C-alpha cells in the first residue's frame, strides 16, 4: 500500500516538477556512459559486442560530452557505469554526496598543458614573471587542477593572477589574440591551436619529475556495485582484456577511430599519449595502501573543496576501491 501511494506521489511529482524520476533498472541490461573523441582500446570490445557476450546481458552505450553530465545521469538512474569519467567531475560529485564510487583507472594521460604566449619570453625558469598576468582556465576541470599544480610546483602565487574562466576553444583564441598571457587547455584541437602561439609552461619531463599527471576513472553507482558485483567484475575484465590485446594495428585503429568519431591519424596521435594500466598494475600502484588514486583524489578534493566543507581526506578514500579488479 505504501509503495503504491508513494508511486502515485512520485508520479505526480514527476509530472508537476518535470523531474527525471529514476527509471527502474531492467535486470538484463547494463547502461554505460562514454565519451566520443576519446579513443580507448575497449571500443573494439564495444563494437564487437565482447561486453555483451562476456557479461551475458545487453550493454547499452550512451555518449556524453562532460563528466558532470555522466554524474547526473548516474544519479537519475539511467547510467550504471561511467567509463573514462574525468577525475575532477568524479571528485566534485562525491563531494556533493553523490552515491558513486571509483572502481578502476580507465586511462592515464599526460596532464593538460598551460601554454604561455611565446612573445612574453616566460618559461619555467623565470616563471615568477607570471605573477600579475591574465590566465584563461576552464574552472573545475582537470586543466584547472593541472594549472594549480604547476603554479604550486613553480612556486607562484595564483592570487596575484587574473583568472578568466574560458572553455578550451575560447582560451586558445584569447591566447592567440593576446588578451590572455597563458591559457590552460584540454582537447586535441584547442591544444594544437594554442601550441601555435604558445609554449607549455612545463615540459613532459618536468611534469613527470614534479609528479603531475592525470587519469580518467571508471565510476559506478553504489547500487549497481552492490547488486551486480559479478557483472562489474566481468566488465572490468573485458576492458583489461581489450587493453591487453591492443597492438595499435591498422585494423584496430580503424575500428576505434570510427567508433570514436575521429580520423585515424588523430586517433593514433591521441592514443600515443595514453597508458592503459593492467589490473595488476592498478592494484599495486593505484589502489594499494598509499596508492596514487587516493592521493591524487585527495589533493584534487582540496583544490576544489568549498570553503568550510568537510574533511575531504577522510571520505574520498572510502569511495575509491580496487576490490572489483580481481
Amino acid at each position, binding site marked *: 500500500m505504501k509503495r503504491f501511494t508513494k508511486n502515485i506521489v512520485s508520479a505526480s511529482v514527476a509530472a508537476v516538477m518535470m523531474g527525471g524520476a529514476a527509471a527502474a533498472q531492467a535486470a*538484463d541490461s547494463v547502461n554505460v556512459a562514454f565519451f566520443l573523441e576519446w579513443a580507448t582500446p575497449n571500443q573494439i570490445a564495444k563494437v564487437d559486442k565482447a561486453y555483451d557476450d562476456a557479461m551475458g546481458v545487453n550493454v547499452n552505450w550512451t555518449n556524453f560530452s562532460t563528466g558532470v553530465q555522466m554524474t547526473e545521469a548516474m544519479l537519475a538512474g539511467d547510467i550504471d557505469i561511467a567509463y573514462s569519467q574525468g577525475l575532477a567531475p568524479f571528485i566534485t560529485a562525491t563531494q556533493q554526496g*553523490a552515491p558513486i564510487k571509483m572502481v578502476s583507472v580507465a586511462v592515464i594521460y599526460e596532464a593538460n598543458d598551460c601554454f604561455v604566449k611565446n612573445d612574453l619570453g616566460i618559461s619555467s625558469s623565470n616563471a615568477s614573471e607570471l605573477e600579475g598576468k591574465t590566465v584563461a582556465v576552464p574552472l573545475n576541470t582537470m586543466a584547472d587542477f593541472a594549472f594549480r599544480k604547476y603554479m604550486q610546483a613553480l612556486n607562484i602565487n595564483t592570487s596575484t593572477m587574473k583568472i578568466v574562466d574560458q572553455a578550451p576553444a575560447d582560451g586558445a583564441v584569447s591566447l592567440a589574440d593576446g588578451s590572455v598571457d597563458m591559457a590552460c587547455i584540454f582537447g586535441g584541437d584547442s591544444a594544437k591551436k594554442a601550441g601555435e602561439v604558445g609554449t607549455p609552461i612545463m615540459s613532459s619531463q618536468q611534469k613527470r619529475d614534479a609528479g603531475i599527471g592525470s587519469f580518467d576513472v571508471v565510476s559506478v553507482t553504489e547500487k549497481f556495485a552492490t547488486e551486480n558485483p559479478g557483472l562489474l567484475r566481468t566488465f572490468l575484465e573485458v576492458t583489461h582484456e581489450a587493453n591487453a590485446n591492443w597492438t595499435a594495428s591498422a585494423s584496430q585503429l580503424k575500428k576505434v577511430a570510427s567508433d570514436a568519431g575521429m580520423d585515424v591519424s588523430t586517433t593514433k596521435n591521441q592514443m600515443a599519449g595514453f597508458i592503459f594500466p593492467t589490473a595488476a598494475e592498478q592494484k599495486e600502484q593505484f589502489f594499494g595502501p598509499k596508492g596514487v588514486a587516493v592521493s591524487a583524489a585527495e589533493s584534487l578534493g582540496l583544490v576544489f573543496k568549498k570553503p568550510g566543507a568537510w574533511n575531504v581526506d577522510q571520505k574520498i578514500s572510502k569511495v575509491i576501491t580496487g576490490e572489483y579488479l580481481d
Partner: protein
Amino acid sequence: MVLEWLSENRAIVAAIIILLLASSFLVSIIYGVQQTRLREKDQVFGDPERTVGGWFWSICGVSVLLLIWFYFSWGAARAFFPQAANELCQVGKLHEAISPVTASLAIQSRYSKSKTLLVRNSKQLRELKARLPVDAFLENDKVRVLKVINNTQKLINMMANPDFVGQKTIREIEKVKSRFAAITNELKTPLQSWSPSQKALQQPSWGISEPEIPMLPISAKGALFDLVSSEAKSISNDFLGIRNLSPIAKDLISETKAMIANLKKLSSASDRDPRIVKTRADYMKAVDRIFKRIDDGKIFPASVMTDIQGSVRTMLQQLEKSKGALSIVEILFFPGGDIIKSRTQCTEQGPGRWLPKPTDVVATFLTLANPDVENGGGYKGTTLLWWKWLPISDVVSLLVPDGLVDLLPGDYGTLNKQGNFQPNYKDWVLLFAQGDVYLGALPMLDGHIWDSLFRVLVAMFFGVLLGVPLGIYMGVSRFCKSFFDPLIELYRPVPPLAWAPLILTIFGIQDDGKIFLLFMVAFAIMVISARTGASGTQLSKIRASHSLGASDRQILRYVILPNALPEIMTGIRISIGVCWGTLVAAEMLAGTTGVGFIENVARTVSDYELIWVTILIMGSLGLIFDLMMRWVIARLIPWRGKG
C-alpha cells in the same frame, strides 16, 4: 551572531515561515473574495479598471509558490520533523545492508536472479552449441566440446533442482532464514528508553553541514534500525557466502574444468592454420566464460529462494510497521525521492537534491552577500554587491589611450650613467595616461551583481540611444527604411550565442565584448519597436498638425515621438529581459565576474544551491527593473490605453 543563530536553527525558522505563509495564503484568499464581492457590481467585464489594485492576490500567489517550494524541496519535512531524515537514514542503512540479498531475490524485480541466470545462460549455451565451428575441431574433440556444453547445462539444471541441494547449503540457508526471523522479532520489540551517545549529539543537524544528514542515530527508533542494520549486514555477508554446490555438482565441475583445460591446450597447439587456432581459442573462451558464470554455485532452486524471499518480505513488512508514524511522514513530506545511504553518507536523492530548501538558498545567498571576502564571503574573491573606492586615474586611463602619448614629440627616458632611470616629460604623461598617478577616488559600486548590472545598463543605454532615433527615422523616411531594413533584418534573427566566438576574437576578454553582445540584442529590439511606434501614428494627427503649421521637426517631436512612446517603452521592457537572458552566455565567453559567471562555475560542480541563488538574483533583478519601468510608463505616458 544573529545570522549564525538563524543558520543553526533554520528548521525552526522555516517552520515559522511556513506557518506565516499558510496563514497569509488563507487570509489573502478570504480578503480577496470579499473585495471581489464588493466590487462585482460596479465594474463591467473588460474594463481596465478591473485589473487595478489586487495586491492581496499577489500575496496569495507568492505564498502558494513558496509553499510549493518548501514542500517539494523537503523544507517542510525538515521544519516539522527534524529527526525524520536521521531515522530514514537508519532505514536506508538497513536497505543498503540487505541490498545484496534483495538483488538476488524477486523483491524489487519481477524474477529472481537465479531465474535470470538460468534462462540467460541456457539460452547462450544453446546458441553456442548451434554455432560450433565445424571445421575447427576434430571429430572426437567435437564430442568433448559438446560434452562440456552439455555438462554446463546439466550443472545449471542440477543447481535449480531442489533434490540436489546439499545438506550444508540447506543448513546455511536455514540459518539465514532464522536470522532474518530474529531481526524481524527484534524490529517488533517495543521501543525502550534510549539515550543517544555524546558523539551522536554533537553531529550537526540535518542540512547544516556538508554531510547533509547526521549518520549516527539520535532517536530510540533510529537506534533500533541502526542495530538491526548492522545485524543485517552480517546476514548479507553470510548469504553471499552460500554456494549451491552438492558433492555431485562438485564432481561435475571438476570434471568439466579438466576437460576445458584440456581443450584449451588443444587450441593453443599451433599445428594447424593459425586462423583455425584462433577460432578454436575464441570458441573455448566463450564456453569457459559461461562455465565460469555457473561454477560459483549462485543458482538456487525456486523453493529455496521462495523461503528466503518470504523471510525477507516479512522483515521488510515489519520494518514498515515499526516505522509507524515515520512512514506516514515519509509518504506525505518526502515527495518524489528517498534518503539513500551510500558508502560514506546519507543523502537526499530526488527533489531534495536538485531543489534546495528555501532557507538553504537564503543561507547561501547571505554567505555570498557577506562583503568580507577574506573570511569566506563573496564568490571567487569578489563580493556579491558592495562598494569600493574607484581611483579617478583608472577612469582617465580608460579614456586616454596609451598610443596617444607615443604621438607626442620627444623620446621616452632611458637609464643614465649612474644607473638610475631618468624620466622625460613623456614618461610622466604616459604614467598619467596609464592611470598610475593618484588623482583622488570616487565611491563606486562593486561586486558580481554590479558587474552584470553595469553590462546590461550600458548595453541598454547605447541600444536606446542609437536604436530609438534610427527606428523613428525608419518609420518616417523612405531612405532610412530601405537602406537599413535589410541590414537590421539580416542580423536580428541570429541568436546572440552565434556571435559569441566572433566577439571574443574582436573585442577580447574585457567588458566591451560582453557589452557589445548585449547591445546587439537591445539595439535590434529598440529599432523594431521604435519603427513600429513611429509608423503606427495616426495619419489624421500628422495631417492636423501639418495643417496647423507645424514644421517637420515639430511633427516629429510633438506628434510622432509621443505616439511611438508606448511601443518604445514596451521595447525597453522586452530588451532588458532578453539582455538578462543573454548575460549568462556573454559571461561564459570569458568569465571573471558577474552573476552569469557564478552560474557557469556552479554548473560545473552541480552546486544546486548556488545555481538557484543565481536564478533568483537574475529573476528578482528583472522583476525590479520591470516594476521601475512600469512606474516610468505610468508617469511618462499616462494616456496609454485611454485614447
